[in-house]
């Protein structure tokens, strides 16, 4: 097992202050604190080489969990093991086999070219010359970094910078990679590139990847397995397909007809829309064969399509209060 998490908890004590002048002054003398349960009783394991998506709305506890796995935060309770190490012990051997990329923060040194950060990482991760040259060459090819290496980091676009961040994080060939919102703020095209890179890299090097994102695309493209977390609690751990089945007991039936008859569709399913020669219905999974054949018999069908509901819809359902899917 590459990552093992058992009954993990993290509480933060935060200072609360009401807005306004009076309360600003009052808080000088009497500070009020509130305990925030950022992570509550989370357990999961990830075998080596797997890519797992960590999904949840903002403030769900994804980043807090990742930070505990990377050794940045001290867990309030519970056990964490990553590649056989307890992250918070801060052992250099542990730090050498993990890497953390945060989409919102940069590890590249801001005013000088990315190559300088790469060289610093080479030294502090004690990467041999030969291995460094090889890895750098591979990353430069895969991420098309050549023209960026010598420009000051601050003059790079967000997408260019993100590619350099990934390279900086992978130079020491980590066994475990934590990606926290790696595609945040990127345009669709660059998101796609970053995704493809992560997928390829994982296949080639068998790196364990734990990825958080709120772009569905990242997760559907890369992960077979997802962890869904909300309000600090793990709501679901399993395959994407099973999640869809559990949460949405229906499929979308799209039928293209020569003309749309003016009838009630209730007998077939729940109408989503009917326009421009196309009828879309929500049909219970078990009724799909029956309903499709009825359509083919009764109407002049040009085309018929059966689809799972879009992932966004599934996730929205999963995030809803009280939904329990595991």
């Amino acid at each position, binding site marked *: 097992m590459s990552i093992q998490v058992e009954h993990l908890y993290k509480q*933060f004590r935060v200072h609360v202050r009401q807005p306004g002048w009076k309360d600003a002054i009052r808080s000088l003398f009497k500070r009020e604190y509130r305990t925030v349960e950022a992570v509550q009783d989370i357990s999961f394991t990830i075998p080596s080489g797997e890519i797992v998506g960590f999904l949840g709305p903002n403030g769900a506890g994804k*980043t807090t969990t990742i*930070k505990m796995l*990377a*050794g*940045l*935060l*001290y867990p309030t309770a519970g056990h964490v093991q990553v590649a056989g190490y307890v992250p*918070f012990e*801060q052992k*250099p*051997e542990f*730090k*050498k086999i*993990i*890497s*953390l990329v*945060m*989409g*919102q*923060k*940069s*590890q590249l*040194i801001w*005013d*000088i070219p990315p190559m*300088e*950060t790469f*060289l*610093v*990482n*080479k*030294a*502090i*991760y004690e990467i041999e010359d030969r291995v460094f040259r090889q890895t750098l060459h591979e990353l430069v090819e895969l991420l098309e970094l050549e023209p960026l290496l010598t420009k*000051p980091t601050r003059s790079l676009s967000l997408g260019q910078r993100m590619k350099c961040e990934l390279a900086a994080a992978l130079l020491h060939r980590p066994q475990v990679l934590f990606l*926290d*919102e790696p595609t945040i703020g990127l345009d669709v095209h660059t998101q796609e590139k970053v995704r493809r890179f992560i997928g390829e890299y994982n296949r080639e090097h068998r790196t364990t990847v734990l990825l958080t994102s709120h772009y569905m695309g990242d997760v559907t493209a890369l992960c077979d397995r997802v962890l869904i977390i909300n309000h600090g609690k793990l709501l679901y751990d399993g395959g994407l397909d099973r999640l869809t089945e559990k949460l949405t007991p229906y499929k979308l039936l799209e039928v293209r007809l020569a003309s749309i008859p003016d009838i009630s569709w209730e007998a077939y399913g729940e109408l989503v829309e009917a326009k421009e020669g196309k009828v879309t219905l929500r049909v219970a999974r078990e009724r799909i064969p029956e309903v499709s054949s009825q359509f083919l018999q009764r109407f002049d069908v040009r085309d018929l399509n059966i689809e799972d509901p879009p992932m966004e819809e599934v996730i929205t359902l999963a995030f809803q209060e009280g939904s329990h899917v595991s």
Partner: protein
Amino acid sequence: MFRKYVVLLRMKYVEMFAYRLATIVWMTGAMVQPLITMMVWMNIDPHQENAFIFYFAALIFVERMTSAWDVWEMEREIREGTYSYQIVRPFHPIHWAIAENIVYKALFFVILVPVWSILAIFVPALRLGQISGTQWLLFFCALLLGAVIRFLFSYMFGLLGFWITKVTAVYGMFEAVSLFLSGRIAPLSLLPPSVKTLSLYLPFRYMVGFPIEILNGDIRGLDIVFGFGWAVAWSLIFMLAVMLLWKAGLRKNQAVGG
């Protein structure tokens, strides 16, 4: 370790030149206060003009060689969350700060030494002929200790950033006290006797005043031994404090943002 330092020093050197102008402005800006203070003292006591010129010129040099800015950097990095990247890498963040200090101070050294030599041609008070070899040796040891104490003091406050978001405000208060007790406003020999005695036991004198006192001959013999004793003691105390605060701070760390 040595190779890591070589790489860090090179990187900090490149980075320093990325901010050429800022570095120069910052360096010359820091000379203004001692120069004005010098003129005030020369005006108060014109008989000792030469002694003041020497003291404050030496002060500018020692000040540049020992001053530490780490608390400002760390406050920003902890508050913005970029310090996280230093924690997850397998090399203690303090080494980055040490490398930065070495590079900037080396630059100040190579600029200030020739400037001093040229000025000495025109200003007799700055000529160094009367200083003995032993004095030089002791001066440089005291200077190194001063840089170490001041760096650790600043880094220690930087680590308090894990608890206090605006730690530079607290640091600023100590800086104000230090202005008097380190000998930056006036040579310690001119302070009221009680304040002077107090200054002997606090760390601030060993950050700035002590090396200058060795150089201008204000203190000799046992006084120097006494001074080194306290300087070493304060270095060790701050070193211990930094180690303990680092351990405790990591537990407290909220790794904000992201």
